[in-house]
């Protein structure tokens, strides 16, 4: 009997504000412990929270980007529990009425796009950090992170398995950076995912008992943790056991999940509206303003790349993982269209694919920021490939020279004399020289060894310093081999 894995994801995205959600302390990462924990953050007696306008703005941005409903009035509640990294003994969070309700996100899978429904996104404050290194047998508490604004984004249990969960997490990760609400730094904990995992028999409509897995601070760990947890649950169920609803921690060392001891007590958070804060009211006008300032989203850009530019879904997906890159490529493409209006569209897309690879390689290998590659120069370079001024191979050389700051592509081609040789007389002359110098290969070719032909082509290209038009070389070489 087959099992189906059901996953829902809760993501805590730290919002890109300068100051905390309810205080004027800095949110910068990496400061000395407790130097960014002000009176409000450490919950001195008598202090009170005041809401950060930018945190609200960023939450609304996400709400609009996912097509959710922005609550015109939302409420902050207190979630009461004791923990040393929670100074007030309660976390201020939105409970009954969150700032964003509903919405969805499309993920790209090998078999196509899939829509993941969002339940809600709500504003809350982050807790501090417990440092478990030994301090005289005690735990150390750093409250610098306490009060950092978080947007908790919760999905419906719409993902089937680890791959879909990771695809969702990546899509959300890309979106939050795209709209500038979160830096997405998973190592620093700016983007943290918890997975609610359950299993059920294929065909069943009921959800199984779920376990929440915490501490998934990379996409790889998320995949490993879900795979492990699902097989653990299946094992329990197949041996006649029952799943205990619980919070589990993913141990990255051994690749397994285990129940969290600190969450053992059945919790009773005693939520109630925080009397220190009033309802958060967001006007239609504000929502419209924020919406009008939002950039085109990745889903829309992806759709445009596929529908209008005829890129493959895979190529469109890769290009839209990052907004800067997508905008850069879009600018490049628009320029290229102008330069190569009469070119075969298929050839153009192929050339674009080449450009995408080269950009990716330059970014990966040389650590070059995409902004450093001027889109109009890149367009000229690719146009030169399409109009047969240079070959792909020469294009790579020119591209490297561009990155090294040698100037515009035409300048480099000119200066370095890289123009493709399309003069049949000139090519014929090189071919004659090669044939004369390689009697052995000529002999082999004629005795039926096709490989020898490739070797001869290579010789010609080499002698022409790569500038000979490869198609012409082929044609002239065959003709001459046949003739002599």
């Amino acid at each position, binding site marked *: 009997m087959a099992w189906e894995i059901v996953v829902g994801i809760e993501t805590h995205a730290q919002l890109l504000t300068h100051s905390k959600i309810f205080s004027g302390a800095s949110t910068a990462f990496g400061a000395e412990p407790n130097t960014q924990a002000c009176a409000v953050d450490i919950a*001195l*007696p*008598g202090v*009170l929270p005041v809401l950060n306008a930018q945190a609200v703005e960023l939450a609304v941005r996400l709400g609009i980007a996912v097509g959710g409903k922005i609550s015109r009035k939302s409420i902050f509640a207190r979630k*009461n529990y004791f923990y*040393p990294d929670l*100074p*007030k003994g309660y976390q201020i969070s939105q409970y009954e009425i969150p700032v964003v309700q509903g919405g969805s996100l499309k993920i790209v899978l090998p078999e196509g796009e899939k829509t993941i429904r969002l339940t809600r996104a709500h504003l809350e404050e982050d807790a501090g950090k417990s440092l478990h290194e030994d301090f005289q047998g005690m735990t150390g*508490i750093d409250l610098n992170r306490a009060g950092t604004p978080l947007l908790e984004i919760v999905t419906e249990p719409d993902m089937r398995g680890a791959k879909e969960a990771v695809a969702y997490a990546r899509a959300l990760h890309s979106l939050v950076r795209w709209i500038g609400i979160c830096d997405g730094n998973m190592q620093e904990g700016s983007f943290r995912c918890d997975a609610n995992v359950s299993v059920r028999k294929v065909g069943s409509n009921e959800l199984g008992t779920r376990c929440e897995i915490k501490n998934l601070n990379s996409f790889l760990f998320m995949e490993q943790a879900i795979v492990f947890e699902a097989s653990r649950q299946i094992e329990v169920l197949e041996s006649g056991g029952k799943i205990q609803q619980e919070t589990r921690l993913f141990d990255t060392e051994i690749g397994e999940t285990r129940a969290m001891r600190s969450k053992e007590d059945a919790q009773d958070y*005693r939520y109630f509206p925080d009397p220190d804060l009033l309802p958060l009211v967001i006007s239609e006008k504000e929502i419209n303003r924020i919406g009008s300032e939002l950039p085109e989203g990745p889903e829309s850009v992806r759709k445009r790349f596929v529908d209008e530019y005829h890129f493959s879904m895979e190529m469109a997906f890769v290009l839209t993982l990052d907004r800067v890159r997508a905008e850069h490529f879009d600018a490049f493409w628009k320029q290229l269209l102008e330069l190569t209006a009469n070119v075969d569209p298929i050839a153009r897309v192929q050339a674009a694919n080449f450009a995408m690879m080269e950009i990716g390689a330059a970014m990966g290998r040389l650590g070059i920021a995409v902004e450093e590659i001027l889109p109009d120069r890149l367009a000229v370079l690719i146009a030169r490939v399409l109009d047969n001024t240079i070959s792909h191979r020469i294009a790579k050389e020119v591209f490297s020279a561009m990155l090294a700051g040698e100037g515009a592509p035409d300048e480099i081609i000119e200066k370095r004399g890289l123009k493709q040789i399309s003069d049949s007389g000139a090519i014929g002359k090189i071919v004659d020289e090669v044939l004369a110098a390689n009697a052995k290969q000529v002999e082999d070719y004629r005795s039926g060894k096709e490989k020898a032909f490739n070797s001869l082509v290579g010789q010609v290209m080499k002698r022409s310093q790569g500038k000979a038009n490869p198609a012409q070389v082929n044609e002239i070489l065959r003709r001459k081999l046949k003739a002599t």
Partner: protein
Amino acid sequence: MLNSTVTELSDALAARKISSVELTRLFLDRIKGLNGRLNAFITVDEERSLAQARVADERRSGGRAGRLTGIPVAHKDIFCTRGIRTTCGSKMLATFKSPYDAHVIERFNAAGAVLLGKTNMDEFAMGSSNETSHFGPVRNPWDLDRVPGGSSGGSAAAVAARMAPAATGTDTGGSIRQPAALSGVSGLKPTYGVVSRYGMIAFASSLDQGGPLAKSAADLALLMNAMAGFDARDSTSLERPAEDYTRSLNDSLQGLRIGLPKEYFADGVDADVLARVSEAVRWFEGHGAKTVAITLPNTGLAVPVYYVIAPAEASSNLSRFDGVRYGHRAKEYTDLNDMYRRTRAEGFGAEVKRRILIGTYVLSHGYYDAYYLQAQKVRRLIAKDFTEAFARCDLIMGPTSPSTAFALGAKTDDPVQMYLNDIFTIPAPLAGLPGLSIPCGFDAKGLPVGLQIMGNYFAEAKMLGAAHRYQQATDWHLRAPKEAQL
């Protein structure tokens, strides 16, 4: 001088009849002489007070003095004060030194007032008799075997015993008005949101409001001019234009409609209290006011509503006292939870723990709707009673407390009896309305009786005006306890 009002002292300072240093020393000496018996102050720092007085005198020489410059003011130990400890009447904070000043303290500092000391109070303002203080009970200056009322009992007793010309207090369910009544002084609880709660240690956030205690209504108005005002650090602070609370002190009473709620003149109120309050009401009638019979039908539900909402909010507000970042921490414990449990069991007194437990219970799973949500709905019914009443009258008058000061220990074994004593002061804060209490005579035992005046939202100036007219014609507010019995 000790018997002078703030208004008179302010005039004396302005006329250079006395310096702030002299005045401050006068009151410090008075405190030194009486505090051993009355226990009205938890902390006094003479050097600090005198230094502030010197600054005030310099400011006056520089021609920059305001009405309160150089006036010594005692502050309830619930207001955080930088450089002098803030205990909130609790062992939990017995050595706590706040690194910042409450907004109210900043305001008094800006006005050039002198901080005379920190007054005793019920622990975390939870109490109506000042018997729950970790620092021992405050005694009523009119009868040392009786309570001064609470929770601002230290402030009320200090003003009554002439240890301070004025003091601050906070009122959640009557904690300014009830001790004012029981100790024979004047006290005002403003409309919710008028005085910033920043730096005022929270008991029940949706009810807490700071306010002044002094001898006269005119003094309360002067003090309100300093205390009130918008503060961006308190989200519930109201953004309103600054008010002069003295502006209506001399308004005529002609045509003033005084509502008399039948629930406030019912069985269960001491006969002497009813008699004195009725006499005061008759005085108003005799000076142009009209009385209107009104009803506040949900008055009886106010105490139950309050004992759901206030403990619920308190249980959460007091979670921060966990022995981690400041305050008491148990010496011995086995693990983290044991540290929390022992720290809080040792650091909080019985009444505070009781309210935390009640609050935890009413918010817990399965009880929230039945208790907390239901209480919030009934709270609206109580507020609605007032809305309807104020359509028919300008002010509401009645007793502040159903009885005069009771004996120390008389109600400590029966919390519900203690709670019911606040029946007339609890409704106003539930509705967010202002209320004040002024002395209106004495019972047969010579204990002061308080007249409560409630007004509509932001009607403080009108309430103070009515009280001031009464105090111009009577001298109850100027009577002092006999020196011999102090």
